[in-house]
């Protein structure tokens, strides 16, 4: 049966670079996929691009490619690669990679550059004028009116269509912007195995979407952040990245190299298959809708898990008519301060400091939109689901007190922090609090909605070093 080996190469803006190099060197892979974008990274990228047309892509792509491309050359240029590190500026990202190839004297390379996923804000206005109604997927709100003046960027999660086309045209590397994390894997599966968007293939594409979800977070499926952390080892401090051997019928084996640390177990994959999927019967991606309850995991040996069908239900359904459009807008500023207080009586001290901050905000007439008080080391991560406070004898010797403010302007946020953040001196017995607070950060908020596919024409350009 036809098969293809695809390796994970990245899962964030930066990731463990050696994980990617290890997959290229020792993974015997045909393709590698590099995801660099989180939910709002594109808003940051577009902001950079608007200030400087030479920026707006993920700078980490350059050191990564400098390490990878020599391995790619040594392997006879067999490995095909796909990356969404182009961010808001895939053409410039491709230019930089071409430059690296020339500077390192690596011979020829063909790069497919995908654009069209960024939607100009004026296009949103045009669509609304034509009578199209945007509906917020989270809140149900209709129309962009309330956020229109605060809009920063708009971009569409796109599928693998153009990735496949680029590979068909002989691309060694495909660079795009908001290619969905998942499409970075679906592209290689479909290109190598001849799957098409159509009824005969939704089951297999569904399996691919599920497996793409396993791989897109790289080391997270191979032991990092696992419930099994106590027994997972990284002999050289080297987490491994997962590799999938996908078969023509949609069954596959997930594995990793023996040279890397970490672990591929039924549990490490299962942990990721229940992560951020929401309705597991309908995991919606631009290339297909998968049913994660329709697969079965079996341990075949060390670091080797087989994925097949569980029962008769199809593993996927037809891809959705609409694409997800993310509209990012500015929603004020956040300032925060953390102070570590020393006991005895840390909880009593923390309560007194809290009371002091609230009184002082009132006294100075400051009105942040939101204030959050939390105890680092006690309840900052889980709020009301934290443990009950202990008695004096069992309380911790020290505790972090943290206050965070959200304000409309950077200046208001700054004033709240400087006037009310340094709370420890007035309310506690020991004047700790020596660190610089984190920078005040702008809030990039998200207005998720849908847009019909025909409104998002994509473009593929091929560039090369001969």
């Amino acid at each position, binding site marked *: 049966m036809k098969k293809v080996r695809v390796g994970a190469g990245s899962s964030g803006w930066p990731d463990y670079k050696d994980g990617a190099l290890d997959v290229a060197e020792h993974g015997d892979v045909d393709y590698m996929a590099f995801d660099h974008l989180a*939910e*709002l990274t594109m808003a940051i990228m577009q902001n950079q691009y608007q200030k400087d047309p030479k920026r707006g892509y993920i700078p980490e792509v350059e050191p990564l490619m400098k390490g990878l491309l020599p391995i790619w050359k040594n392997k006879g240029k067999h490995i095909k690669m796909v990356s969404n590190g182009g961010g808001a500026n895939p053409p410039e990202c491709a230019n930089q990679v071409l430059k690296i190839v020339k500077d390192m004297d690596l011979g020829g390379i063909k790069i497919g550059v995908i654009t069209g996923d960024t939607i100009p804000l004026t296009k949103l206005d045009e669509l609304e004028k034509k009578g199209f109604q945007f509906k917020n997927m*989270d809140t149900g709100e209709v129309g962009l009116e309330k956020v229109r003046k605060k809009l920063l960027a708009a971009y569409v999660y796109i599928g693998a269509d153009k990735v496949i086309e680029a590979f068909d045209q002989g691309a060694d590397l495909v660079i795009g912007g908001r290619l969905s994390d998942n499409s970075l894997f679906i592209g290689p599966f479909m290109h190598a195995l001849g799957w098409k968007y159509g009824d005969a293939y939704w089951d297999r594409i569904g399996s691919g979407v599920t497996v793409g979800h396993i791989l897109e977070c790289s080391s997270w499926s191979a032991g990092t*952040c696992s*419930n*099994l952390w*106590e*027994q997972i080892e990284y002999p050289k401090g080297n987490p491994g990245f997962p590799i999938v051997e996908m078969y023509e019928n949609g069954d596959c084996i997930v594995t990793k190299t023996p040279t890397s640390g970490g672990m591929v*177990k*039924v*549990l490490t994959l*299962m*942990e*990721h*298959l*229940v*992560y*951020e*999927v*929401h*309705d*597991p*019967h309908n995991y919606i991606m631009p290339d297909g809708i998968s049913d*994660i*309850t*329709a*697969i*079965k*995991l*079996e*341990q075949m040996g060390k670091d080797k898990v087989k994925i097949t069908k*569980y029962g008769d239900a199809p593993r996927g359904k037809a891809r959705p008519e609409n694409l997800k459009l993310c509209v990012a807008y500015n*929603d004020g500023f*956040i300032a*925060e301060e953390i102070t570590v207080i020393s006991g005895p009586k840390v909880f009593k001290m923390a309560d007194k400091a809290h009371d002091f901050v609230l009184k002082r905000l009132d006294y100075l007439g400051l009105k942040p939109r*939101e*204030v*959050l008080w*939390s105890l*680092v080391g006690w309840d*900052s*991560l*889980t*709020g*009301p*689901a*934290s*443990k009950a406070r202990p008695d004096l004898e069992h309380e911790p010797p020290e505790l972090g007190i*943290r206050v*965070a*403010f*959200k304000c409309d302007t950077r200046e208001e946020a700054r004033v709240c922090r400087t006037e009310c953040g340094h709370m420890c001196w007035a309310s506690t017995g020991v004047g700790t609090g020596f660190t610089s607070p984190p920078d005040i950060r702008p*809030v*990039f*908020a*998200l207005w*998720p909605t849908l847009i019909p596919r025909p409104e998002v024409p994509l473009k593929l350009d091929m560039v090369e070093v001969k």
Partner: protein
Amino acid sequence: MMANKKVKLMDICWYRSGDKGDISNIGLMAKTKKGYEIIKKEVTPARIKAHFKDWVKGDIVIYPMDNFCALEIVMFGALGGGATKTLRLDQTGKAMSVGLARMEVEIDEKDVKAVIGPPYDTMANPEK
């Protein structure tokens, strides 16, 4: 008479949580089939809501996943506005699963062994 014993979800399940906008989702994976029967019955939207109090403002939907003996728990309005808007330290709710895992359920004393299951390192088989 049946003797009941309280166990924490963290003793009978594995867990991982993540986010999408202001939605927190928790994957709660029972270590054993018996444990799956128990969490399917005991871990309800009402109990979860009572556990997280005002940290979860919206609805809670639970999808059982028989193939993994797991529950996919989707909590709306659960992250203080979502990753970039929230004032919480854990912006993407990665620790929400730990919060849930502190919840206690009552089980029959005679089932304790079957529910807590074999130690981690023998666990490889999804059939449990």
